């Protein structure tokens, strides 16, 4: 028998004989066999409480009812989950729970989604025998996003665990005892935390409510659209609650994405940029030195005419793509530039050196190197036995990846090593915390871990922009020298930073990290090259000396304000397409709302092409993606998986990459947990939390202040 083989036991649940792994919790076994045992405090993945007493079941030979959340299954166990005695006990527990619970369901945000309502509906009494005075304390606001109504709280401690164990913050605790015991925030009367809202999401009742959502709707009045968060590169699924063409909630309670139910403050609340009053809703053309609103037809004609004339005259172009637009848009943009505009001057905001990693892996020796298998997925971070984090404040810059490592540490005792310029949250549970001040001390810090890492079963190395260019190759050589399976993540900043590179928004690389037909200018050279036309799609650039500038954006950024034509584009929450996460997982966007006057960038580009009478192929997201699948090496991901909400990983290691050897162009923007580049400035939620804008490698939230 190998170590991974699990012994099984046979037991009887409600008369049905079932087989389950020895030591599994009875409540989990019941669930896996289709029997739901109700519980408030039990929550998969978090420490056991046995506090709510709802999951009591009858087990033969036990004199008392047993909490199924803390009983491991055993051979021959005979369990009844819905016997008369059990159902009576649940009703009694609900009677106790409701005794001090305010029955303000008609005005409670949780109404309709409340587990206490559901449970009372299933087991509870229709009448109340409680005629005493209820315990009452006033509602409290703990932060712009977190409100707490203590009387509604049933003390299941889910929030305390989600914050402490899940997020690694520990900003919530319990104060007092007995019937007046109450959840309290870390700063006495307010919170200093990640503002992630996990506590609100996990609350089974309406005790914790969200400042953005409270009193806005009844849950059944919303439609729910599962799409991908457009902030950082982690690729979290966020389910947007939409009412009257307005996003009013973000969560992932259905655990449908790679992120399970994890979301950070950006994923859960920072969708509000979408409805910011500064959103552009009309195209603008510069007339007499001023940008004036014009119809789409006029704007598109102006752009097409300028583009066509410049191409005809053999003029020069500079094209800058976005780190938030879809793969389809990025692919179409590079195709437009290279084939339509005949230019190789193509770039985007580079935040991590993925090309160098793909190149290094293509030639590295080792058990899984030389293949895309050396690129870690988000799931690998939860499964690996060890992880090395270099040069990233992971919990702030890559909150979901950090969540995965924390969960791995909790559930599988994964060993985490950090090599960072300052304190990070991972320090709290990592086995080694090394600090560096410069490249040399970083290299020696990494080298000093060689012996320890050799002893690990396997390893995932996550590295930020501190490692780029030739250093990436050295890091991969270090990894190969360990003699254990090693996977890598080159950390990048934004929701489709990865896709921008994969789709060839680089002066020297075509889609799939193949050599571009011609090599052009990178962004810094474009700035002063006196180009005839500068085309900026959803990006920000320094002021250029280009003669004519076209900008597509959501907002009148400084770049857009300098442009000759501004085209209002739709946000990621308003369009279809795919994006690629930092770990290479390709996922679909679904449009949740529309903003009148805007168009998706793909449509804008398609319309310009049509005006120019260019044949660049059909410009719907599906058709462009078909072309990507068939032409970009590694992107032939299974469509069925993608369409059903899956996250297949792009397989990008397909041979050596012709690098431009310009590591100085790679730089993370250094966003904190509360900033998100351009989008963050337009999110009132992010800018309203006291922690905004935050600081990387600073004191950790929730720790002794």
């Amino acid at each position, binding site marked *: 028998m190998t170590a991974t083989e699990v012994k099984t036991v046979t037991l009887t649940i409600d008369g049905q004989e079932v087989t389950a792994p020895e030591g599994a919790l009875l409540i989990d076994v019941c669930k896996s066999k289709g029997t739901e045992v109700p519980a408030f405090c039990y929550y998969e993945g978090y420490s056991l409480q046995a506090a709510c007493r709802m999951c009591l079941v009858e087990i033969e030979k036990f*004199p008392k009812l047993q*909490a199924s959340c*803390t009983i491991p299954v055993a051979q021959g166990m005979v369990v009844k989950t819905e016997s008369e005695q059990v159902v009576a*006990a649940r009703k009694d527990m609900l009677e*106790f729970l409701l005794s*001090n619970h305010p029955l303000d369901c008609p005005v409670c945000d949780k109404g309709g989604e409340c587990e206490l309502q559901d449970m009372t509906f299933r087991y509870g009494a229709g009448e109340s025998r409680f005629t005493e*005075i209820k315990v009452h304390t006033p509602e409290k606001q703990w932060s712009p996003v977190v409100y707490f109504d203590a009387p509604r709280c049933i*003390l299941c401690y889910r929030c305390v665990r989600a914050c402490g164990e899940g997020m690694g913050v520990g900003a919530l605790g319990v104060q007092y*005892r007995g*019937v007046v015991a109450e959840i309290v925030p870390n700063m006495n009367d307010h919170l200093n935390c990640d503002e992630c809202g996990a506590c609100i999401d996990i609350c089974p009742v309406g005790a914790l409510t969200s400042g953005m959502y409270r009193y806005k709707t009844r849950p059944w009045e919303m439609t729910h659209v599962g799409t991908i968060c457009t902030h950082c590169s982690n690729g979290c699924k966020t389910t947007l609650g939409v009412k009257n063409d307005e996003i009013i909630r973000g969560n992932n309670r259905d655990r449908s994405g790679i992120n399970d139910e994890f979301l950070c403050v950006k994923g859960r609340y920072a969708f509000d940029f979408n409805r910011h009053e500064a959103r552009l809703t009309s195209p603008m053309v510069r007339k007499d030195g001023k940008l004036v609103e014009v119809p789409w037809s006029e704007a598109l004609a102006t752009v097409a005419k300028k583009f066509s004339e410049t191409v005809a005259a053999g003029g020069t172009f500079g094209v800058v793509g976005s780190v938030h637009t879809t793969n389809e848009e990025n692919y179409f943009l590079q195709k437009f530039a290279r084939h339509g505009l005949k230019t190789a001057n193509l770039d985007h905001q580079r935040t991590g050196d993925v090309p160098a990693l793909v190149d290094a892996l293509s030639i590295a020796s080792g058990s899984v190197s030389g293949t895309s298998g050396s690129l870690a997925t988000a799931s690998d971070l939860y499964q690996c036995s060890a992880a090395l984090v270099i040069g990233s404040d992971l919990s702030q810059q890559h909150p979901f990846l950090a969540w995965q490592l924390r969960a791995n540490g909790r559930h599988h005792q994964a060993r985490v090593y950090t090599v960072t310029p300052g304190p990070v949250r991972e320090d709290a549970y990592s086995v080694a915390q090394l600090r560096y001040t410069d490249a040399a001390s970083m290299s020696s810090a990494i080298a000093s871990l060689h012996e320890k890492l050799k002893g690990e079963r396997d390893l995932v190395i996550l590295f930020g922009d501190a490692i780029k260019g030739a250093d990436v190759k050295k890091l991969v050589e270090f990894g190969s020298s360990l003699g254990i399976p090693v996977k890598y993540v080159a950390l990048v900043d934004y929701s489709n930073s990865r896709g921008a590179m994969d789709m060839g928004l680089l002066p020297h690389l075509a889609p799939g990290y193949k050599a571009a037909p011609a090599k052009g200018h990178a962004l810094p050279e474009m700035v002063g090259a006196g180009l005839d036309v500068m085309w900026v799609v959803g990006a920000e650039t320094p002021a250029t000396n280009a003669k004519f500038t076209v900008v597509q954006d959501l907002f009148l950024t400084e770049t857009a304000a300098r442009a000759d034509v501004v085209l209002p584009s739709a946000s990621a929450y308003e369009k279809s397409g795919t994006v690629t996460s930092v770990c290479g997982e390709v996922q679909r966007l679904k449009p949740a709302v529309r903003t009148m006057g805007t168009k998706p960038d793909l449509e804008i580009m398609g319309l310009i092409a049509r005006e120019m009478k260019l044949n660049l192929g059909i410009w719907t997201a599906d058709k462009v993606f078909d072309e990507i699948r068939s032409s970009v090496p590694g992107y032939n991901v299974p469509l069925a998986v993608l369409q059903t909400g899956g996250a297949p990983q792009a397989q990008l290691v397909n041979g050596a990459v012709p690098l431009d050897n310009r590591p100085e162009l790679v730089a993370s923007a250094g966003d904190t947990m509360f900033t998100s580049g351009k989008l963050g400035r337009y999110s009132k939620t992010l800018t309203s939390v006291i922690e905004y804008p935050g600081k990387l490698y600073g004191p950790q939230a929730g720790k002794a202040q």
Partner: protein
Amino acid sequence: MLFNEPHPLEVRVLTKRMHEPGYNGSVEAYERYGGYRQFLKAVEMTPEQIIEEVKISNLRGRGGAGFPTGMKWGFLPRQSPKPKYIVVNADESEPGTCKDRVLMENDPHLLIEGCLIAARMAGAQRGYIYIRGEYRYLIDITERAIDEAYRAGWLGENIKGTGITFHLRAHSGAGAYECGEESALLESLEGKRGNPRIRPPFPAVSGLYASPTVLNNVETFAAVPGILEMGGKAWADLGVAKAGGTKLTCLTGHFNKPGVYELPLGFPVEKMINEVGGGVRGGRKMKAFIPGGSSCPVLTGDEAWPLTMDYDSFAKAGSMLGSGGVILMDETTDMVKAALRIMHFYAHESCGWCIPCREGTAWLKKLLHRLDEGHGSTRDIDLVGDLAKNMLGRTFCPLGDAAALPTMSIVKKFRHEFEAKLAHAPIPAASPEQLVAIG
């Protein structure tokens, strides 16, 4: 100082030194009266032999639960690579119980020697005496005794050249009955809220700092030197079958001579009341009897009268021996007020961890308060019993049962008093057949 005159019917093993003239509890006095010799004897014994002797003695945990101590010690994984700990539960807070105080105040080295023997058995190098915060003077006494023991070489490294190292400290609680529950005590000792832990694992396997821990009541540890001295068999013979030795019994309530007395297990209730306790005050009749702290089901006078002070006897009568805190209530007692005061206590002390105890005790307190003031209906009397029953056996830790059991018994046995309250009839409203005339 002693708190009450000794009684000739006492069998003094644990309390034998403190009654000697001039005995002051110092290490010199303790040594003079044979102290620490049983530890030296234990050093010559194997851990198995120590456990076996305790098993033979039929010593059962003196904190209230009455679990066989030898068996509990046997659960300790002595081969575990983790450090082992000795933890003394001196969080004496069960209403009606004041026995550990007597031991700790008058003979602190007896407890230290008990710990040393347990440490020898367990291979433990550290121990803590968790003392309730209200007993500050006992913390001071214990700390002084520990310092003395260090100076005299009975604590520290390589004790008396035996190669055994043991460090002991007193640790102050800060007011929480729940911390008398062993797993909550461990949480508290780790600096946390005193919420009980999920068991298993039991403290023997995963106790203090998730390490194997020997956790017993003060009186249990204090009994061990005597057991080694007289031999397990002789100790067992002092008591009854399955419950050996003596028990410090606290006579409280309406006794003529309340006090703490060391009585052998199986001592007749009648003799205890009439002779040791000097009868019921003012020659009144006995209405109710609680054998061992307010967590036990209440017995009527006539139920209690023929019983003996041991586990089986009270179990058969539907109650428990508990902690040894006898509470006697005479015919003038208002049983509704008694039920209310008991529930007031449990509501105050509920840690709030689990729903039935948190909500149940608070609800019952309010309900009993209302009934005591004469407001309500007979349905409310039923509700008291019903809510207590709904808590029983369903709470996370025994505190819920402790609140439910006396309440259920009072409602069942003294229902007429509740009815009298509702009828605004005078108190007492006692049923004559429940009263026992004493003497």
